[in-house]
């Protein structure tokens, strides 16, 4: 545990103040939902009994009241969520390392998302938030939450239907790499599509400027498909020791990671299935379960620099 939340007086004071706000918001939201549910139940019940008009009239009043309650509490909720990110997560970041900071309204832009070349599909809907920036010893890094989706439109008998599909949902981590290089190296998980694509471009025809790089680490080659613009440079970056470190990092995550090395920078995409750094409304802030999760994630990102040995700067890059 990197930060003893229970014994940290400053953080406990912030959490205690915010807990009061949270309880107020939770109470109003609960009240709002109860009124909405009561309105709907009343409407259905009276209509079933044969009085649809009184049912609708009687049901609509609590429904409107409940909606107004939820609408009114929305501003407080936004302020509470923002305060959680800046005061709680922000404080936890500073305890970990003075250089770390969070900006809830910034992220990694859609153009940088495409620039990483980690994903082929261009997003139609793109959301990013919670940009964390900092420096671990000599290595500058940043990461942010991203949700990128593309849409497909199908013609049905009821008209056009739009379906949204995830391209990526999770955290993208970027760090200054410890070696100079000019080309592009991309490491993607070896799923069926990537394996087939790699076989095709190796044996039949290679699209674009990137070739498949067959690496000698058997485990690495089983887990990932590597593409690169230069066979030697890809191996200069992916040394036997870095491949081992990447595999170890990958073992710590539930879903396989993707990596790219572009213009002296390294990007890692971590697919995740939940939204991080969000303040709980119906769970207590004091028992800090959500906060522990968030801090573990931040610590994990911070430790990547150490895990991948990015602070060793003996290759002519300061």
């Amino acid at each position: 545990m990197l930060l003893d939340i229970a014994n940290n007086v400053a953080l406990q004071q912030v959490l205690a103040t915010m807990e009061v706000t949270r309880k107020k918001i939770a109470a109003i939201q609960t009240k709002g939902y109860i009124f909405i549910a009561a309105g709907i139940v009343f409407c259905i019940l009276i209509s079933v009994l044969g009085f649809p008009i009184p049912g609708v009239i009687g049901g609509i009043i609590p429904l409107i009241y409940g909606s107004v309650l939820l609408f009114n509490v929305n501003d407080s909720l936004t302020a509470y969520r923002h305060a959680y990110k800046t005061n709680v997560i922000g404080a936890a970041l500073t305890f970990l390392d003075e250089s770390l900071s969070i900006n809830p309204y910034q992220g990694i832009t859609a153009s940088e998302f495409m620039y990483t070349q980690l994903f082929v599909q261009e997003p139609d809907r793109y959301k990013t938030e919670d940009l964390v920036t900092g420096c671990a010893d000599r290595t500058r890094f940043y990461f942010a939450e991203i949700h990128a989706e593309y849409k497909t439109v199908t013609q049905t008998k009821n008209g056009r239907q739009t379906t949204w599909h995830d391209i990526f949902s999770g955290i993208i981590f970027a760090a200054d790499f410890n070696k100079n290089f000019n080309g592009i190296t991309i490491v993607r998980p070896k799923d069926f599509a990537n394996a087939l694509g790699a076989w095709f471009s190796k044996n039949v025809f290679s699209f674009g400027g990137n070739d498949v790089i067959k690496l000698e680490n058997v485990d690495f080659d089983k887990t990932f498909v590597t593409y690169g613009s230069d066979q030697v440079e890809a191996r200069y970056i992916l040394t036997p020791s870095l491949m081992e470190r990447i595999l170890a990092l990958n073992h710590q995550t539930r879903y396989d990671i993707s990596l790219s090395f572009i213009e002296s920078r390294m990007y890692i995409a971590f697919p995740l299935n939940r939204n991080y750094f969000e303040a709980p409304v119906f769970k207590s802030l004091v028992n800090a379960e959500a906060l522990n999760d968030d801090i573990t994630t931040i610590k994990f990102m911070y430790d990547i620099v150490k895990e991948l040995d990015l602070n060793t700067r003996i290759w002519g890059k300061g």
Partner: protein
Amino acid sequence: MIIALIIIGSIFIGIFFYNSLIGKKNQVTNAFSAIDVMLKKRFDLIPNLVEVVKQYTTYEQGTLTKIVELRSKAGVPNISNAEKADLDAQLSSNVRGLMVNVENYPHLKANTNFINLQTTWTESEEQIAAARRAYNAAVTDYNNSIMMFPGSLFAGILNFHPIAVLETAAEERKNISAKERFNI
């Protein structure tokens, strides 16, 4: 009609495998030339390194003379690839020894030129290691193609033979560590 299709199909498959084998053989040649370029880059560092070290130490003359000697041997035109690789291995081992002994000369250790040369040398070591690995991957790919059916048929006709991969020195298999390498 069917026979004609079979013949045309066979010709296309034949062309595909022939081109693929030639492509893989050329990749091996290209990969070796990459090693050559890296070696030349490294050999070019030697005169500067010797000059800087000479200014600060009078005790490493034997090693310096040996290094200069090996460098001039490597510069002789038309030496074989195997000889070049052997000279490089000897050079590396001597320079590595020299870098370790630098601990005894604090002024040299603090010299900016020397520090730059150290990092460039390490960079070139890892680049050569990468080029050797790329060469070995190209050789393995080529060897697999000519030893497996139907590539083996063409290899026989074209007189293609398996190529030996480059052995990696035990020293190169170790992870590069600044601490061990330069006593920093």
